[in-house]
């Protein structure tokens, strides 16, 4: 990053400003495109890649329907069918739905917020590469005939080694976990961005409703994905090293997998639905000419929905033998979730009724969404009632229900959004003829394919069977579903043709063709790399309605940060509640470091898949090296005075403040980490309380050395980091660096002490789930001790090189958070590890 002293730049014309900003924010051509970090570029890559995966998932769906079109069909054998339906679900859920949301948010969030980019552009790029590589692992495996075949939720024991001996299940666990890394990165990115990277004046109550939806979605991703990552890691450890977390003969439990999976899996439904609902809440006011009714109530409903959706995970497990009262708790939560959903639906209806709706293609998809999602919601209430669920469980009724929810709650709103923002993405006008034909085919095809499935299911047809006998009476309904499925596919193919022809051949569209009032329409279309010439000061949720001349004024540079300077990529950061500007963020430019880091991460996962563990260790070292270089490039080497931000105001550069985005990034990363750790504690206690073959035959050896070593490391490390921060604040740089070295050594001691447990005192991890859990917890603690040591050493090196001063001390803020987290989880880990041995 350049560290020139900011000067007074010469005023620029609108064209001059455009050229200067485009040079600063653009992505290099040719191979340089691999270094892109710009949110529009990365967002579009996400969206296009997700739709490629959607088409692959659609082809797989056609294979399923071809197989089930008639009884006793031998188009696919049972093994191939298992791979096809597993991959269909996996591709649609993990490679299409979530990444499409991430792509939309990456592309749209800064534009809605009136910002120039997200908080961590390199993290966006890293997330994209992880997604692409992880998804490619799954698709390549499918082409090689070794695709996962245990269902998209990979239930144990079917997915365990004895019953799935090939690498099929490993492919799922490795590939999906790789993609989940991308999702967690996106969640941290979005949480921080909405918290801090908005334009001036954008207080919480002035944020566009879509931003609230994406913020709640990001929070749910942050808390929803770690349990599945934990489950995937545990299952892969069981498959690779025979650590019996899910083997009931050795203290494990298959139900633990179901709990961890659905702790993610049910919120996942809402993670998919909420952005779709956000699109609806965005387009409805535009096409009805009426402000959204109940803005504040929708936000309240969203927050309620975000929480309650986590209390529903076991409603996928009503048939597993959980005691009735526990089922009733989940049933109560399942019925509760209807209320915040209904609040949104009634708000939409009220908006519709109080406005004058225009029938555009987006609105057609809105009507399609409303009818389809309400049907899916009602059948959802039916299966939330335990006795009914026992009748319909694992039948095609559930297949119908989930498709009504996902197509209705996600695909239709996304199609509405595509047609709404198509002029924004392409800068071209859309003619609706072909799109309306596609809509008709999609609606007819979808309902004729899935409505009969309710009946097929109630007549007893189970899910995931590759064929059925003609005597069952399911053939006519299946034939209707299959034929209609192909009509649906033709409809989607027409949408693709329609979008491509608009992008290639459409006539130029004027800016803001719908007369919308949100900021993404206040920029040229398609948007330039920097979004807007200057950032506005907003005083309401409808800035373009308040001032129709705002886009021209921003292009003239009348807003914030209208004068490019020093080669800096600048965007405004605000006070998280009031939205008043409080710092200027200097963002990094194009770099290959996210790609290298993702390649190293890919090397780690692929080497693990093929059991090349020395290579995995090398990959880990490479990841650390990449991470070090990544972080090193940020910051300032000299203190800087506040800079002019326009409108007669000044603000400090982010490196000079107490709460730069890095700090909040660390907060949210640790939250996700905490959920992972919480799920680990839950799993350990669940096995201890519920699984058979407990108590374990042997506990840890009772010895004081390793726990005291870890305790000493924790106390020393925490004290050293605090003393170091204080010394830095008092300009005692040498003392501060000494304390950092002490904390690095303390981290190493913690790692050593934790690793000593499985090496010297624990039973063999493959002997019992207890031993496996103890080894895993020790590994978790050792890993975090190691990271603490690396972070402390990094801060020491930064201090030596002049990147840290009493005013520039974010390294200390982040380090203190990490050590606090390590202190808390370290104490809990010690209690879990050594408590049972000392109490026995």
């Amino acid at each position: 990053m350049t560290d020139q002293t900011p000067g007074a730049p010469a005023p620029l014309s609108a064209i001059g400003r455009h050229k200067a900003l485009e040079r600063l924010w653009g992505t290099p051509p040719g191979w340089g495109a691999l270094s892109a970090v710009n949110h529009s570029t990365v967002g579009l890559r996400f969206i296009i890649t997700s739709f490629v995966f959607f088409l692959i998932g659609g082809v797989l769906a056609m294979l399923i329907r071809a197989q089930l079109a008639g009884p006793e069909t031998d188009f696919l054998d049972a093994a191939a069918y298992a791979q096809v339906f597993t991959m269909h679900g996996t591709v649609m859920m993990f490679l299409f739905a979530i990444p499409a949301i991430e792509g939309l948010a990456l592309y749209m969030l800064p534009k809605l917020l009136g910002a120039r980019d997200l908080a961590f552009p390199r993290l966006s790029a890293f997330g994209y590469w992880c997604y692409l590589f992880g998804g490619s692992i799954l698709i390549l495996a499918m082409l090689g005939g070794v695709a996962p075949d245990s269902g998209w939720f990979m239930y144990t024991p079917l997915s365990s080694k004895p019953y799935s001996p090939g690498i099929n299940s490993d492919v799922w666990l490795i590939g999906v976990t790789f993609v989940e890394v991308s999702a967690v990165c996106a969640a941290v990115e979005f949480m921080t961005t909405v918290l801090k990277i908005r334009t001036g004046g954008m207080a919480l109550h002035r944020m566009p409703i879509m931003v609230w939806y994406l913020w709640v979605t990001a929070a749910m991703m942050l808390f929803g994905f770690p349990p599945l990552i934990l489950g995937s890691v545990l299952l892969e450890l069981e498959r690779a090293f025979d650590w019996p977390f899910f083997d009931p003969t050795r203290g494990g439990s298959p139900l633990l997998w179901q709990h961890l999976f659905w702790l993610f899996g049910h919120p996942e439904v809402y993670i998919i639905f909420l952005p779709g609902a956000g699109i609806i809440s965005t387009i409805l006011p535009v096409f009805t000419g009426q402000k959204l009714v109940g803005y504040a109530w929708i936000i309240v409903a969203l927050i309620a929905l975000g929480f309650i959706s986590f209390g529903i995970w076991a409603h996928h497990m009503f048939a597993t033998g959980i005691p009735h009262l526990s089922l009733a708790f989940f049933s109560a939560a399942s019925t509760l979730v209807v209320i915040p959903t209904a609040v949104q639906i009634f708000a939409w209806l009220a908006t519709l009724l109080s406005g004058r709706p225009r029938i555009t293609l987006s609105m057609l998809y809105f009507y399609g969404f409303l009818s389809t999602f309400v049907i899916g919601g009602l059948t959802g209430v039916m299966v939330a009632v335990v006795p009914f669920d026992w009748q319909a469980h694992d039948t095609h009724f559930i297949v119908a229900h989930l498709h009504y929810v996902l197509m209705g709650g996600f695909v239709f709103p996304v199609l509405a959004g595509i047609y709404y923002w198509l002029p924004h993405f392409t800068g071209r006008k859309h003619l609706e003829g072909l799109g309306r034909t596609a809509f008709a085919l999609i609606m007819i095809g979808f309902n004729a394919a899935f409505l009969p499935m309710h009946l097929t299911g109630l007549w007893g047809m189970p899910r995931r069977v590759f064929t059925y006998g003609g005597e069952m009476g399911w053939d006519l309904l299946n034939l209707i579903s299959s034929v209609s499925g192909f009509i649906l596919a033709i409809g989607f193919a027409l949408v693709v043709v329609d979008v491509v022809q608009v992008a290639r051949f459409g006539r130029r569209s004027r800016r803001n063709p719908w007369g919308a009032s949100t900021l993404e329409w206040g920029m040229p279309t398609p948007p330039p790399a920097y979004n807007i010439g200057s950032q506005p000061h907003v005083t309401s949720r409808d800035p373009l309605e308040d001032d129709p001349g705002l886009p021209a004024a921003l292009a003239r540079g009348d807003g914030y940060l209208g004068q490019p300077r020093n080669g800096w990529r600048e965007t405004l950061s605000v006070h998280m509640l009031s939205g008043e500007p409080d710092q200027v963020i200097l963002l990094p430019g194009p770099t290959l470091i996210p790609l290298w880091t993702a390649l190293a991460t890919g090397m780690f996962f692929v080497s693990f898949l093929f059991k090349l563990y020395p290579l995995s260790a090398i990959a880990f070292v490479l990841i650390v090296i990449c991470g070090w270089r990544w972080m090193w490039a940020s910051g300032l080497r000299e203190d800087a005075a506040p800079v002019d931000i326009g409108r007669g105001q000044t603000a400090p550069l982010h490196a000079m403040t107490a709460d730069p985005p890095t700090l909040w990034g660390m907060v949210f990363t640790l939250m996700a980490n905490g959920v992972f750790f919480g799920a680990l504690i839950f799993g350990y206690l669940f096995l201890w309380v519920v699984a058979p073959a407990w108590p374990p035959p042997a506990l840890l050896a009772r010895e004081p050395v390793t726990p005291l070593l870890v305790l000493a490391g924790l106390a020393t490390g925490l004290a050293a980091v605090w003393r170091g921060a204080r010394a830095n604040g008092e300009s005692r740089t040498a003392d501060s660096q000494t304390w950092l070295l002490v904390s690095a050594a303390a981290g190493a001691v913690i790692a050593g002490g934790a690793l000593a447990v499985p090496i010297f005192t624990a039973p063999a991890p493959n002997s019992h789930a207890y031993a496996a859990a103890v080894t895993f917890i020790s590994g978790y603690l050792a890993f975090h001790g190691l990271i603490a040591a690396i972070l402390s050493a990094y801060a020491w090196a930064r201090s030596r090189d002049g990147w840290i001063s009493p005013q520039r001390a974010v390294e200390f803020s982040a380090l203190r958070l990490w050590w606090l987290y390590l202190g808390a989880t370290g104490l809990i880990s010690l209690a879990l590890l050594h408590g049972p041995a000392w109490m026995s």
Partner: protein
Amino acid sequence: MKAPWRDFWRLVLLIAAFLIWSLAFIALYGVHGAACAAGWANADDPWPLRLTLIGVWAALTLAAAAFALWTWRRPAKDGFLRRSTMAIAVIGALSTAWLGAPLFLVRVCA
């Protein structure tokens, strides 16, 4: 507490009622599952466990209600945030109360 953290905690207050709801959910499910697995309740005398669960539920519902009351009595600062916090607090308290309904309807460890 420094300003950024103070503001962050005001955002946490926005969702605090549902944090209590989450705690109630985990406590009820956890205590019930552990007690049933340990064979603490039996068909002859299910009341000790039922009363324990009712106690857990009542305590957390009261906590949620007390929080809701506190948000109503708090001096106003930010209109939107305050009103939203109040609304979520009331809804969170009602949701916590709703969670306990099965305690009076369903057999304990069947």
